């Protein structure tokens, strides 16, 4: 049976639409679910996605991708990757899978929202494929870590994390639910596909793939590169939508949603991707620093995309550029210090060599976070490990749900950003998070951070044991230093000399 050439029928098929007669347009596309801002159907019909694919092509290409990813995995199953990898690298995998696998599956709901409630036919088509992409991403990122579950219980968190009240899982759910599961089709397109996928996911999936290849973890490198090829297609759902909105007098609305999406994505990346790239990835395998990856993917490429589409850089851009230098260092220190509360073993990443690298990439690091690490290192050398474990909670931001932290040491810039709304005082880590709240306060007002819950007596007993129970962290899953503190010995000679 002869098939038509794609160009003979594609444009006709993808613009096929209909005018409802049995129901109203609003009944077919409820405004809250489509998020279409009152734009007419003809306005939406000019939507033109840059990356086009037929279902026939999709099935063929995706099958090849899966065959490639799964065969590499099968071939390397006999390798001693797990046994010989640096423990810091295993922590990269555990934190990645736990934070991301179920979130991908959740994203298929978001894509489905666009597939059903997007008013632009081209958007509905691309989102149908995107929905299948995200199902793939959820499944493959559950299957791949599964082989390690018998060896290490922390890998079970690839599936378990999203069902727990572990603090990083709360932060991930708050962000992803805000950006994708609780938005109309337009909101999803702007926040998920445009703000998050076009810019940030390249960091975790391509930047990290480069480090993985350096580390010799071909299974993981190949997997996340393969995933990102899907992303490159469905991430482009959002950009043509921006053009439609800007052309129809909705630039301010589009800008606001993009600005919220970028800020929310940024904070999550600062706690997940930042520590992974600058501290957990073994020094010899770091292709670039987190800041360098951010400069390449976000500041250069994404900023250009924003301008090209007729949007402005977000109002907080200067603050954001400053934070790229600093935020993830505090997130890393916080995750390491509060390591019993995470499902992976953080690598400290602060041997003398690593500190030299950090100083080179972030001049001033030793005079800031380095000062905090000096005290920690001295405690470990003196056999006072108990002083390196926490005895209280950090205060977390009521938006990003992450510890409120800024530059320490003599330059000390730490501060709270409080806000009174109705009968409650909220605490934020930054002007950006506070602004997100102020833009849509009723969306967030009822949420309780982990600290709010603790103060309300929801975590019992009111100590670390109670907190770990609340977070569903069991023995065998509770995090500790990835290298069992062996790195401290690199400071022993100098310490012995100084204290002699």
């Amino acid at each position, binding site marked *: 049976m002869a098939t038509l050439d794609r160009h003979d029928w594609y444009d006709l098929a993808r613009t096929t639409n209909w005018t409802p007669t049995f129901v109203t347009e609003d009944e077919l596309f409820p405004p809250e679910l489509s998020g279409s801002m009152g734009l007419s159907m003809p306005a939406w019909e000019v939507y033109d996605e840059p990356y086009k694919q037929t279902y026939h092509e999709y099935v063929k290409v995706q099958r090849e991708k899966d065959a490639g990813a799964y065969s590499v995995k099968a071939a390397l199953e006999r390798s001693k990757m797990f046994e010989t990898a640096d423990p810091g690298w295993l922590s990269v995998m555990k934190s990645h899978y736990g934070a991301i696998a179920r979130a991908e599956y959740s994203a298929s709901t978001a894509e489905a929202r666009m597939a059903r409630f997007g008013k632009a036919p081209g958007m509905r088509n691309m989102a149908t494929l995107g929905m299948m992409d995200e199902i793939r991403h959820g499944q493959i990122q559950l299957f791949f870590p599964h082989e390690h579950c018998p060896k290490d219980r922390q890998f079970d968190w690839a599936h378990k994390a999203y069902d727990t009240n572990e603090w990083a899982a709360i932060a991930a759910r708050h962000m992803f639910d805000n950006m994708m599961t609780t938005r109309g089709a337009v909101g999803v397109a702007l926040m998920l596909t445009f703000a998050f996928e076009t810019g940030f996911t390249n960091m975790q999936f391509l930047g990290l793939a480069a480090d993985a290849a350096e580390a010799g973890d071909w299974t993981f490198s190949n997997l996340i590169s393969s995933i990102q090829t899907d992303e490159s297609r469905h991430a482009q759902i959002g950009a043509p939508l921006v053009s439609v909105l800007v052309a129809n007098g909705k630039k301010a609305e589009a800008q606001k949603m993009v600005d919220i999406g970028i800020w929310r994505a940024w904070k999550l990346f600062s706690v997940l991707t930042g520590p992974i790239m600058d501290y957990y990835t073994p020094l010899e395998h770091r292709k670039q620093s987190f800041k360098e990856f951010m400069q390449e993917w976000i500041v250069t490429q994404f900023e250009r995309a924003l301008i090209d589409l007729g949007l402005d850089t977000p109002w907080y851009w200067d603050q954001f550029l400053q934070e790229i230098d600093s935020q993830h260092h*505090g997130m890393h*220190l*916080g995750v390491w*210090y509060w390591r019993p509360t995470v499902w992976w073993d953080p690598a400290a990443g602060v041997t003398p060599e690593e500190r030299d690298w950090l100083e080179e990439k972030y001049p001033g690091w030793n005079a800031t*976070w380095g*000062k*905090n690490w*000096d*005290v*920690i290192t001295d*405690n470990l050398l003196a056999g006072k490990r108990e*002083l*390196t474990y*926490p*005895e*209280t*909670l*950090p*205060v977390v931001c009521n938006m990003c749900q992450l*510890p*409120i*932290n*800024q*530059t*320490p*040491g*003599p330059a*000390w810039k*730490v*501060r*709270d950003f*409080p806000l009174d709304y109705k009968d409650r*005082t909220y*605490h934020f880590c930054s002007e950006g998070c506070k602004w997100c709240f102020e833009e849509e306060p009723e969306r967030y007002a009822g949420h309780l951070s982990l*600290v709010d819950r*603790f*103060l309300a007596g929801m975590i019992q007993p009111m100590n670390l044991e109670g907190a770990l129970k609340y977070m569903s962290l069991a023995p065998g899953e509770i995090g500790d230093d990835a290298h069992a503190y062996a790195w401290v010995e690199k400071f022993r000679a100098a310490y012995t000399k100084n204290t002699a």
Partner: protein
Amino acid sequence: MALFPLTSNFQEDFVLQLLAVDTDNTMDEVAAAAAYHSVGRRVAARPGHIMRVRRQGSEKPFPRTMKLNDAGLKPMECIEVVWEAP
């Protein structure tokens, strides 16, 4: 005599921390409680120095003997705990 939560911002530390103190505590006692979670953990001790408590944004610290109950602080309000040279 009641439990009172504050947000502790200790000088040269990197993070805000939950501080559980008592309304009857003096500011010196509040400072010591804050120090427990920062000094000798991530901030070097300063022998001979005193620690003072001030509300975030204020330059003037509270009097050392003032009771928390009389300071007019709200629950979880952020206090800065700063070193003062002898």
